[in-house]
């Protein structure tokens, strides 16, 4: 049964049909209204009152609304909950429209296309689009707010893993699926745990041919990737952005390719384990490597520094270039200080440029852009005095955009309002016509005052007043007591309880002039603002380029500041495939310690005599800290940063792998041991001889012997097959025997001092293996009740006694196994039945023991025969 609605509601339903996946904000006067299901949903999510509206049908239509000037806040809340919001505006002047006002959706806001400042933090907000073609996953990604656009392809057996690593770094707010992705379930499982904020959208395009040309038009054919899958990913991405942002996106002009081979590969778990940009505790930046290094003064610099940490370099020349720049800024603290002061004046102008591009920039944005541009000449001059290549080149390349700065200075008032359609933005003296109109509007006071005095005189009514209100305009108010004296020329306009309001031709004429002027002022100001925006928009490419240079300077100065504050030194780069660190410190832990002092440690990893460090020592002694420290210092060195060490020489590694600490992957439903083994498998598959591997207590998730065996096998495999620099911490002191087996394996331990019953951790890594774990001691330190500690010590004593037997047995077993193998009698057990029998001393057996042995032998015989 069809219901007939009012024309306006028909218009609504028509638009809603085309945006059924979004909540439609339908502009009605000063409100955005929502109807039907949208209204019920929004009233629940936003806690606003649900009402109804007569819409022609028998039943009132559910409705709720928010005032237009407060809409941003409500939209932000809906976006944060993962909804999409379509903004539908009146696109013609209601006064001029015939029938109902035409309305159009002017923007669709999705988590990945947010542009409003209050919905974005300082970091990036990426939108990722995925396409799969011939078993290759293509990714196109864009941060519309900062005008970054990149693409990548993931092929081969580990494409999903590699894609997930990349997703982890981009941390997209929204993933758009352009078609069917084979391993979507795996990707979604990953994002559910690691990127819980991320939402998914499916994009269905009926006529792909219509959009296939988009990337070519937008980026120019030179920049396009060769793979057709990549082009279609970009085409879909652009299509999606055009549909949502609804602008020509001219600022999104630079397309880069993410090529894993250019960067030190860090998988998601390594980034997490090392707490590079987010800590493990709550995912925030607190106590991360980034927090120690981030002394940036601009949002752009902050984003770039984060990127640098997530994508350390491989190319020694590129690393050296950054080191040179950092070094010069460290050595010239006064220059650095000047840069920092100048940079602090710079706003997030990448995002301002985006708002200019999409036409939402207001006058304050322009003032902020002006203030940012104002410090550029100083920065340029400062850079000109420097020698490091990157800095000097940036000094040459930074353009100061003096014309833009001067134009905004001349045109925009110093403290303009946020609103763009209320006037007050344009500076006096910029536009002659505007100034004249303003003068006209300003003189109204005098006119009203004069008119009032004249009319009082003429009518003799003392209480005569001239007034104004928005609905009726100007009026002359006369109380009822004086009604008799009202001149005939007055026209009655409005009746109040105790007064009448009139208008005269003179007042009417004045009103038309004033109101006209007011309207014209607003229109002219808006027009001028648009003109200036367009002027800036034409220059967007150049200014973006400057913004990128500013970001780079900021990031370099930040590294220099961190180096100066932390007493860091410049690591040398070697080609001898060595990692040599003297008195290295953990950059984050040394900051957290207050009363205690961080104990620095040396590292010597090479492929001659120390490829694998087996580190033993008690819990809490600092093994994990040490290993993370080595990984972090290598990472930092490849970022081009200075590092907390007395001196260091580092050869860039191609990947850093870590398997550290207990994983909290309970959310994935995997057991700790399973997660651990997955990660180890991943490492062993991907590591090369140029990698750095950090393994912390492999195999502790299972029984002692299983664990020890796995650990030993992993080390052996690493030694023989991978030959990567490896740090291996373990509790299994038995593994220290491996040192004997290969020259490249070295034992290290954390020095411990026993003092009576007490143990002091010296936190110093020294050559040689440890022979004790001091686990019970640590338990005592942790406050385990004394009774339990004592009992544990007893049990330990017994076990140690027992273990000697076990070891002896194991030794024999191994020997017999060899013998068995030689005899080509493979058996699941260590010895054959014959040997077992001959080993029995029948004379000393009790009858029960004899029966037990018989039982065992029978089972063994059955199994050897393959019968249960």
């Amino acid at each position, binding site marked *: 049964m069809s219901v007939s609605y009012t024309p306006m509601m028909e218009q609504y339903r028509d638009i809603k049909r085309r945006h059924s996946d979004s909540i439609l904000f339908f502009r009605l006067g000063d409100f955005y209204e929502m109807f039907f299901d949208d209204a019920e949903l929004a009233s629940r999510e936003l806690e606003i009152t649900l009402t109804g509206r007569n819409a022609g049908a028998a039943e009132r239509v559910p409705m709720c609304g928010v005032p237009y000037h407060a809409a941003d806040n409500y939209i932000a809340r809906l976006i944060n909950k993962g909804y999409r919001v379509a903004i539908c505006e009146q696109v013609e002047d209601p006064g001029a429209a015939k029938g109902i006002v035409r309305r159009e959706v002017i923007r669709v806001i999705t988590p990945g296309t947010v542009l409003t400042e209050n919905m974005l933090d300082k970091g990036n907000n990426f939108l990722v689009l995925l396409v799969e073609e011939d078993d290759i996953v293509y990714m196109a990604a864009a941060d519309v707010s900062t005008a970054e656009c990149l693409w990548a392809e993931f092929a081969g057996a580990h494409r999903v893993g590699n894609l997930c690593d990349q997703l982890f770094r981009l941390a997209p707010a929204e993933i758009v699926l352009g078609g069917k992705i084979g391993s979507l379930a795996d990707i979604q499982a990953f994002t559910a745990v690691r990127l819980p904020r991320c939402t998914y959208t499916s994009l269905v395009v009926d006529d792909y041919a219509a959009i296939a040309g988009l990337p070519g038009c937008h980026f120019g054919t030179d920049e396009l990737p060769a793979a057709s899958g990549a082009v279609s990913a970009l085409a879909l991405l652009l299509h999606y952005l055009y549909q949502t942002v609804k602008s020509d996106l001219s600022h999104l002009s630079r397309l880069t390719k993410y090529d894993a081979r250019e960067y030190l590969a860090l998988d998601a778990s390594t980034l997490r384990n090392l707490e590079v940009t987010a800590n493990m505790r709550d995912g925030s930046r607190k106590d991360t490597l980034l927090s120690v290094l981030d002394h940036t003064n601009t949002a752009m610099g902050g984003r770039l520094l984060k990127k640098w940490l997530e994508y350390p370099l491989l190319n020694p020349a590129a690393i050296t270039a950054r080191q040179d720049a950092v070094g010069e800024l460290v050595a010239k603290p006064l220059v650095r*200080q000047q840069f920092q002061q100048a940079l602090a004046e710079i706003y997030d102008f990448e995002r301002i440029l985006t708002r200019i591009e999409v036409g939402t920039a207001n006058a304050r944005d322009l003032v902020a852009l002006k203030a940012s541009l104002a410090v550029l000449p100083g920065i340029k001059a400062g850079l000109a005095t420097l020698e490091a290549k990157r800095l000097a080149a940036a000094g040459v390349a930074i353009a100061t955009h003096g014309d833009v700065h001067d134009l905004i200075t001349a045109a925009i008032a110093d403290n303009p309002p946020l609103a763009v359609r209320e006037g007050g933005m344009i500076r006096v003296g910029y536009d002659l016509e505007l100034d004249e109109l303003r003068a006209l509007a300003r003189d109204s006071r005098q006119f009203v005052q004069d008119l009032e005095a004249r009319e009082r005189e003429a009518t003799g009514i003392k209480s005569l007043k001239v007034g104004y209100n928005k609905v009726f305009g100007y009026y002359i108010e006369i109380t009822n007591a004086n009604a008799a004296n009202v001149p005939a020329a007055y026209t009655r306009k409005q009746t109040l309880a105790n007064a009448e309001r009139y208008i005269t031709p003179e007042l009417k004429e004045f009103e038309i002039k004033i*109101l006209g002027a007011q309207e014209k002022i607003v229109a002219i100001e808006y027009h001028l603002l648009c003109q200036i925006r367009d002027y800036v928009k034409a220059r967007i490419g150049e200014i973006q380029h400057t913004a990128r240079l500013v970001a780079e300077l900021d990031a370099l100065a930040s590294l220099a500041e961190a180096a100066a504050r932390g007493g860091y030194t410049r690591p040398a780069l070697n080609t001898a495939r060595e990692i040599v660190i003297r008195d290295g410190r953990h950059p984050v832990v040394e900051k957290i310690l207050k009363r205690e002092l961080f104990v620095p440690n040396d590292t010597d990893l090479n492929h001659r005599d120390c490829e694998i460090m087996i580190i033993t020592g008690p819990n809490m002694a600092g093994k994990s800290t040490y290993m993370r420290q080595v990984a972090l210092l290598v990472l930092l060195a490849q970022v081009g940063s200075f590092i907390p060490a007395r001196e260091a020489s580092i050869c860039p590694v191609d990947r850093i792998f870590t398997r550290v600490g207990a994983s909290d992957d309970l959310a994935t439903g995997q057991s700790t041991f399973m997660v651990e083994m997955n990660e180890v498998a991943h490492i062993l598959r991907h590591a090369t001889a140029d990698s750095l591997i950090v393994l912390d207590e492999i195999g502790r998730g299972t029984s002692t012997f299983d664990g020890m065996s796995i650990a030993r096998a992993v080390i052996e495999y690493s030694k023989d097959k991978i030959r990567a620099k490896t740090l291996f911490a373990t509790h299994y002191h038995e593994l220290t025997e491996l040192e004997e087996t290969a020259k490249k394996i070295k034992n290290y331990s954390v020095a411990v001092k026993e003092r009576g019953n007490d143990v002091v951790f010296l936190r110093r890594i*020294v050559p040689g293996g440890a022979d004790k774990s001091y686990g019970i001691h640590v338990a005592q330190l942790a406050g385990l009740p004394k009774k339990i500690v004592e009992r544990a010590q007893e049990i330990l004593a017994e076990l140690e006694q027992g273990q000697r037997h076990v070891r002896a047995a194991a030794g024999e077993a191994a020997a017999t196994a060899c013998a068995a193998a030689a005899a080509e009698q493979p058996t699941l057990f260590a010895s054959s039945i014959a040997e077992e029998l001959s080993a029995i001393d029948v004379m000393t057996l009790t009858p029960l023991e004899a029966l037990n042995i018989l039982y065992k032998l029978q089972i063994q015989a059955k199994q050897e025969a393959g019968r249960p």
Partner: protein
Amino acid sequence: MTQPLIRVLDENTANKIAAGEVVERPASVVKELVENALDAYSRNIEVTVADGGSSFIRVTDDGVGMNRPDAELAILRHATSKISTAEDLYSVHSLGFRGEALPSIAAVSRFSLTTRPHDAALATYVEVTGGVVTETREAGGGVGTVVTVADLFFNTPARRKFLKAPATESGHIHDILGKLALSHPEVAFRLVNNDRLVLATPGQGGLLAAVSSLYGAKVGPELLPVSHEEEGLAVSGYIAKPTLLKSSRLWQTFIVNGRVVSSRLLAKALDNAYHSLLPKSGYPLAVLTIVLPADAVDVNVHPQKSEIKFSDESKVFKAVYRAVSASLAAAQPEQAAATTSFSWPRAEQRQSFVHPPNRVSYEYTPRAPADQPVWRETPLPFAVAREAIRQEDALAGLDAAPFQDQAEEAQAADGMNLAPLGQVDDCYIVARGEGGLYIIDQHAAHERILYERLSAASGRIPVQTLLVPVFIDLDPREAMLVGEHLAVFHDLGFTLEQVGPAAFRITEMPADVPPGEARDFLHDILVLLDGRASPTAAELRHACLQTAACRAAVKAGDSLSMRQIQALLQELAATSLPYTCPHGRPAIVRFGPDDLAKLFKRT
């Protein structure tokens, strides 16, 4: 058998006594330890203190460190690596040499030393409690030395009592460390006080960078370089332009052969060079490094070695005087072209200081290069310098602010019994009263009176109905705000009627405010309303009353009759807080008999 009356003191007691000389307060511990660190060729020195240093001091350096036997010896009295015979005293280049510091400090604290030379894997840890070695063992540690001093004076309660408030003690530490940092700009210093980094020098970029990081980047452009050399004596460093004056000598640092010293001789030489340039009393900021042969100076005259003796005082005096004068003279014509809007924040200071007529009877050529003699005759010869040294107290200056205790008496205003004497500059009222001479800021005083009167009335602020309404024009945004807040304005005493899209008629406004000020007043309130944080009604009211009082009060420049003055003083005395205006500025300044005596140097 009688016990002998005289005994040789055991070592521990001797150390405790010596500590009295060397360890005066936490800052002296810091000084001794940092000087040790400097002597050990450190590049980075970090000082961490808590509670003003009384509970915890730690000095960490990355110097050469010590091996175990040395570490054990270091805490013995008169053990030093720095000299071996008394003759060495005259050629001493290190900062310490007596071997007194560590044992003295260890005698009066819970002391620990962790030290490692670069060729050892493990550090040595020595723990001394109240002078008794309680533990010696291996430890983990970086190359260099860490000394921890906890619970200073825990075993000498009498001395502990003499420690000042933690803020004062950490202030002393801050001062001394700042000066040490200036004496070694090539070393990076850090001071962490109660877990906050409060001082850091870069250890690079020379003295100027160290000065900038200590005194702020803005000081940089205010400094003049000093560089002067004569007969084996070199003076270098930075002095401030005469426009940058400081309130005390804390901002003056003298470094002689790498040692921070306090010297009246040097301070006087500095003062004299500035003498004619200083517009008012104050002390120029200065960092001066003097290098002269080791045998021309005796450093062993003071237990803390903070004072020294020059063998030829007049020569040093003259050299410093000439160095500073030359630098000041050279700076004078320095005035660059107008600033562009794009210049560095540190662009040269534009304001020029006018050179006052020379009152001293020597001449100098303004552009004279520093190395040429700038004055012919020597009318300020040695004799003057001598005198300067002798007049010890003259240097003490007028540091102490005479009106410190004003805050304490602020509330006790009753019974001041002010009898007006007159009005000065149409701005201040001078009055005699109990307890001395009073100067009253007439505007601030009236503001206070009006504020209290206005706030005494509850409900709507007292209003005046205007006979002739005031018409005002606002800009559209303001008009919108007024339109939205008509009720608020009504409570604040304004009755407004709209007479145009952005024009209003004021028919009523707060009493006492002159109608001519209506627009400005309204504007002030609009600024408040427009601010980001929407003010509460009470805040608005308070702010409005403040503004009303301010707008209505007599202004500086209003001439008052004696009667008006009398009335004003009476009403002021009746207010609850007569000493300050509602904005918190002082309204009354009192000069007690003591203050007056001080001003006239009668004490």
